[in-house]
């Protein structure tokens, strides 16, 4: 590599930039060190003695990894507990049944709607969406029963606008869940395989590639479990409509997986490159340097997406709000996991299974 020294220099100088304006959360204060801090970071790491306390803060992602892992588990474990204990609040396309989304002109109160629905004897539940809007869910109705239900409702509560009717039988609901799970599992395996293949040429060969792929997969699962866990808590713990799991939610999970893997690959790609050009640094130092070099990009990209999602969450209709919330949580989680989990996990794995 003829341009090796330049690259290393580029890497260090990179953190001089005032990019930190774009950062969020706890990164904000940490991301504004002067150039000197980084010189010292690398010097200190090369020297065996522990660095003395310094007046300037530095980012040392790797050695604080246990804190980051703990923070993730703090959210994921309650989520898994809820998932195992009470499962999810299922949307109509997963649970089966018939769901009417209606807006009454007369704006009846919830009790009126509930009593009208109860009189039909089809096991209904009623959720209000405001402004005379209600979502009424019943057992699966045949077309004829559905017609009767709609007519009776109109007779009792006055005219309404039927915005959406969804009627899903049990068979197809089960199939949708199966297909959704199957596609997530296959996609995860495919990503693992692809990354193992792509990273096989780092020092350590195929086994190193597998470490990269496995760490990325772990970060991906982190996001999937965090997102589904939060929704289990929202849906079952708080009983909120927004926490419902449906096909759109699965789409959100897949989107998050896509983004998270992007972020992770960018960090890993930098590690791959730095391993080649900065051979005097230890693996941990390379990982830390790579995270610093790419964090700005990851956060910038996610930040633009987050802005759009917040807008949809605030302005969007009821159908899209749950979806936007899922994406929001997932994308923040995805960025977090690629910076604070995936790369540090790689270090842990490397320690347990040294390859060099």
């Amino acid at each position: 590599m003829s341009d090796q020294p330049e690259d290393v220099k580029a890497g260090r100088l990179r953190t001089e930039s005032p990019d930190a304006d774009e950062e969020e959360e706890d990164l904000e204060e940490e991301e504004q060190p002067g150039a000197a801090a980084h010189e010292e970071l690398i010097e200190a790491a090369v020297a065996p003695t522990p660095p003395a306390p310094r007046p300037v803060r530095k980012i040392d992602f790797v050695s604080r990894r246990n804190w980051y892992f703990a923070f993730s588990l703090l959210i994921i474990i309650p989520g898994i507990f809820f998932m195992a204990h009470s499962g999810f609040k299922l949307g109509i396309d997963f649970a089966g049944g018939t769901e009417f989304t209606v807006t009454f002109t007369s704006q009846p109160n919830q009790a009126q709607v509930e009593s009208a629905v109860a009189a039909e004897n089809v096991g209904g539940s009623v959720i209000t969406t405001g402004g005379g809007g209600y979502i009424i869910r019943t057992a699966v109705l045949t077309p004829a029963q559905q017609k009767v239900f709609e007519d009776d409702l109109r007779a009792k509560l006055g005219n309404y606008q039927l915005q959406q009717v969804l009627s899903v039988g049990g068979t197809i609901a089960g199939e949708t869940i199966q297909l959704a799970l199957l596609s997530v599992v296959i996609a995860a395996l495919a990503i693992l395989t692809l990354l193992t293949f792509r990273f096989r040429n780092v020092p350590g060969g195929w086994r190193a590639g597998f470490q990269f792929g496995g760490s990325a997969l772990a970060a991906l699962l982190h996001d999937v479990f965090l997102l589904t866990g939060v929704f289990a808590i929202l849906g079952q713990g708080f009983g909120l409509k927004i926490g419902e799991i449906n096909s759109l939610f699965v789409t959100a999970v897949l989107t998050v997986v896509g983004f998270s893997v992007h972020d992770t690959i960018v960090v890993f790609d930098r590690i791959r490159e730095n391993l080649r050009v900065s051979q005097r640094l230890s693996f941990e130092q390379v990982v830390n340097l790579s995270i610093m070099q790419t964090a700005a990009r990851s956060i910038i990209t996610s930040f633009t997406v987050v802005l759009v999602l917040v807008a949809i969450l605030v302005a969007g209709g009821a159908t899209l709000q749950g979806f936007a919330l899922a994406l929001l949580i997932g994308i923040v989680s995805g960025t977090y996991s690629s910076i604070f989990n995936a790369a540090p996990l790689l270090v842990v794995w490397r320690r347990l299974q040294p390859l060099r």
Partner: protein
Amino acid sequence: MQLVLSWPVRLLIVGILLFSLFVDGAGYIYRIANHYSLTGNVPGLPPNFGGWQLYFHKGLDLAGGTHIDYQLTNFPPGQSKATVQQRTISVISKRVNSLGVSEPEIRGAGANNDRITVDLAGVTADQAQKVIGAVNKLVYTKWVADTKVTGGPEPGYKPAFTGLTGDDISSATAAIDQSGLGWVVNIVFTSRGADLFSNLTTANVAACPGDPNTVVTANCAQRHLTIWLDLTQKDIDTWEDTTYVSKVSQNYDTGCLATAKPDTVCPKLLVDAVTLQAITGGNAVISGGGNGFTQSAAQDLATGINAGSLPVDLQVLSVQQVGSTLGAQSVKLSIAAGILGLSIVVLFMIIYYRVPGLLASLALLFYAGAVFAVFKVVPVTLTLAGITGFILSVGMAVDANVLIFERFKEEVRAGRTIPAAVDAAVRRAWPAIRDSNMSTFITCLILGFVGPGPIKGFAVTLGIGVVFSLISSIVVTHNLLAIVMAGSTFRRAALMGVDRVRST
């Protein structure tokens, strides 16, 4: 990277750009060419260019309408399921046509060819199910003299049931006749049907013998057999009423039949055919006379005869009915989210990355234009999930640019000249962009093949988006950067979003 900057590649990009502009602006090109105003409703939209109708195909969740999944049960023995499924689809299509739905989508589904999904825009679930699930009874009548009858296909005669019904027909198919000139419909009767038909045709010929093609008296009313849908005894009793009869004797309308109230009069005639000779084998041919039917007329008639009985039972698995207001609202929201997203991204890129950001924004517009053109041309049916896939791919297109520009800043700070930095940035960012997009694309492939319905739409738009985002970020941005940076006008630090720039 030399390849990316070569002239053939640049020409290809300009070609894609022009094509996209044409496709995206098809409506406006049509308006200008025909001297219509640029806004408001004009006839002939969406325009048709050499068999291409160029417009966005909206899924039901955006257009409003009804989606139904049917399970087919009770397959007739001895026929392949795929064939029966196809026949059922053609019967349903025929029935749905009577609703006047634009672009009904009726597709086979299910691993065992035992599902059918139906998408109908602008129709309620109630209407759709009535028409599709309707059981029309097909009946054969002969004609008996009644002097009081003055109207209808055979004045002076009224129809009489023969006992022969749709249940006695095992199949009806359209085929080219033996002369090869026109189309005919072949009917195969069951054994009971063959006996009845044989007796009827023998009696017909006996009523007025001769060859009806040459002997005028041989073509008498008693020699006709007529097929109706849902003809009732009440209809026959009212045969003397000429307005009533002329209405009933028009070509059948399944939509009317399915939604008819007790006092509605619907057209019920399927075909009125003269019997040429006694048919004893159980195989009849209906020809159009002269040169026979046209292909579509023969197929319509065969479908009509089959429509008397769907070959299978339809069981409803799921129904989705979306009101047109909700659909329109979703469209508005999606467009608003798209415009908002693009503007945020463009603003951010320009403020943060200056001239390169501006160039990337241009590349992003190219990208959006090209993807929209692909959506129109393929065509891709756009759903809410599909639009999400597109917005996500915008994010990925931006991501590739951000990667390149962050690298570009590093290279400039490391002391490279601007052109060298551009080259190095693209080269160094490439592996990450390649791997991340490849992982997304593979995921799309899997979801497209394995995923449940709504997720397929997401996978298709995201997959198309990923391909074009790669072209946009790697090829277009790089070329624009290379062209702009070739001159010295823009090589100032402030315009580059970096602190200082090496002068040579």
